[in-house]
């Protein structure tokens, strides 16, 4: 615990961004604390001002419109897992939230906003949002802007947490018949993955694979968004050739694999290809089942 910390409990987003805008560096937003508190407890982070947004009700709701879902940044993992709207419109996100480690206690307290802002390679939410083509609403004193998850992972200076607030996660309705998959290679149920993959697949009427979106986490410092790399050889038949192309693209995209408690670099690179193929096949099977159902109707 650091000795002197100032504290603010703003009443709404406007107050939060006004305060952040006025303060010089050293102010840090705290939401669920699941990422920040371990660092504070061990003195590895010593914010001079803690801006506690955990009570902001307007960031705790989940809404739908014709365009899809809008999820408040303070929605906790447990609510992502069980919310009927999310399970209907973006079941992949609900499933990815179920894969998060740390047990039910962390699911009840960790927020989707904090998970994204942390941009942690081992976390499970961003890969799912990448393949769902999600957008993020970021609010600062200058106003709100919406940026795609794909662009956000390339923004080194998003200023979220210190100068801006992640306010909402926006997910459009999925194309009809889209299948999805998520594969997390982990040693125990409660731990981080050694390689994570999220995928979505759309099939053409003739059964050819029309589009694949794929993201790989836990293997490199930055989560890999490989959807564009895969687009170059689609449409294609869902055969062994496509499988090995996917694994090939994934493994060659892994330039500097992480080496940590979750496994050594070369293992992680090899497993990236394996989880990619598994997630792709889960998505493919689901898209095929959906197509078979529609044909019968």
């Amino acid at each position, binding site marked *: *615990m*650091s000795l*002197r*910390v*100032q*504290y*603010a*409990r*703003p009443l709404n987003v406007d*107050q939060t961004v*006004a*305060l952040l805008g*006025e303060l010089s560096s050293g102010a840090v937003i*705290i939401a*669920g*604390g*699941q990422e920040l*508190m*371990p660092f*504070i*407890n*061990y003195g590895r982070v010593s*914010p001079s*001002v*803690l801006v*506690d947004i*955990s*009570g902001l009700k307007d960031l705790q709701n989940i809404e739908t419109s014709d365009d899809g879902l809008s999820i408040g940044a303070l929605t906790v993992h*447990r609510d992502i897992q069980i919310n009927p709207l999310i399970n209907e419109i973006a079941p992949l996100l609900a499933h990815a939230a179920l894969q998060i*480690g*740390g*047990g*039910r*206690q*962390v699911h*009840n*307290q960790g927020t989707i906003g904090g998970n994204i802002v942390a941009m942690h390679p081992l976390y499970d939410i961003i890969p799912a949002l990448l393949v769902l083509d999600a957008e993020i609403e970021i609010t600062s004193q200058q106003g709100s802007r919406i940026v795609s998850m794909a662009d956000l992972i390339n923004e080194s200076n998003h200023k979220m947490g210190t100068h801006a607030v992640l306010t909402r996660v926006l997910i459009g309705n999925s194309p009809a018949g889209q299948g999805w998959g998520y594969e997390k290679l982990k040693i*125990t*149920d*409660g731990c981080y993955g050694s390689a994570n993959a999220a995928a979505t697949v759309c099939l053409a009427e003739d059964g050819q694979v029309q589009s694949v979106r794929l993201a790989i986490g836990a293997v490199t410092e930055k989560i890999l968004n490989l959807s564009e790399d895969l687009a170059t050889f689609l449409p294609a038949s869902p055969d062994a050739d496509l499988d090995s192309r996917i694994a090939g693209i994934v493994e060659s995209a892994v330039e500097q694999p992480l080496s940590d408690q979750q496994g050594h670099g070369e293992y992680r690179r090899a497993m990236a290809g394996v989880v990619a193929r598994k997630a792709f096949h889960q998505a493919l099977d689901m898209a095929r089942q959906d197509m078979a159902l529609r044909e019968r109707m």
Partner: protein
Amino acid sequence: MSEIHEILEETAFLQCKVNGVSFEEEIHPSMSLLDLLREELKLTGTHMGCMTGHCGACTVSVDGRIIKSCITPAASVQRKKVITIEGLAGADDSLHPVQEAFCEASGFQCGYCAPGMVFSTVELLNEHPDPSDAQIRKALTGNLCRCTGYQSIVRSVRQAANQKTASGDHSE
């Protein structure tokens, strides 16, 4: 300096209920809920194992959901109801049925992991009164035990579920 600075405080004002008793005090802004419970309120049944969120020994319930108090800022339980392992027992100090089951099926050895194991079981049985073994194991993932090897803990959860089903009690 603009008005917005006026919301900056040197301490955090916290108003909450702990085991039914009102708490109202200025606290250190980055204090964990665990430190508040153990150091300020002397509720030492909530254990400290890691302060990183990995072991689960510090588990308490906040507004009916379990959390790890070491990585939950105390200031964030503003206007909430906290129940610690001390508050789980009945007013007459009788044990909660889940605690009874753990005693009977030898779910504790040193008891360090007890708060997490017991609270995780309570939350599980509220949702699934008759859980499968897989559901039991999944519900315990946030907790580490150095002593038992987990088999007796899984048996204790099963026993608690059987008692609950037998007594027809599906509520908490």
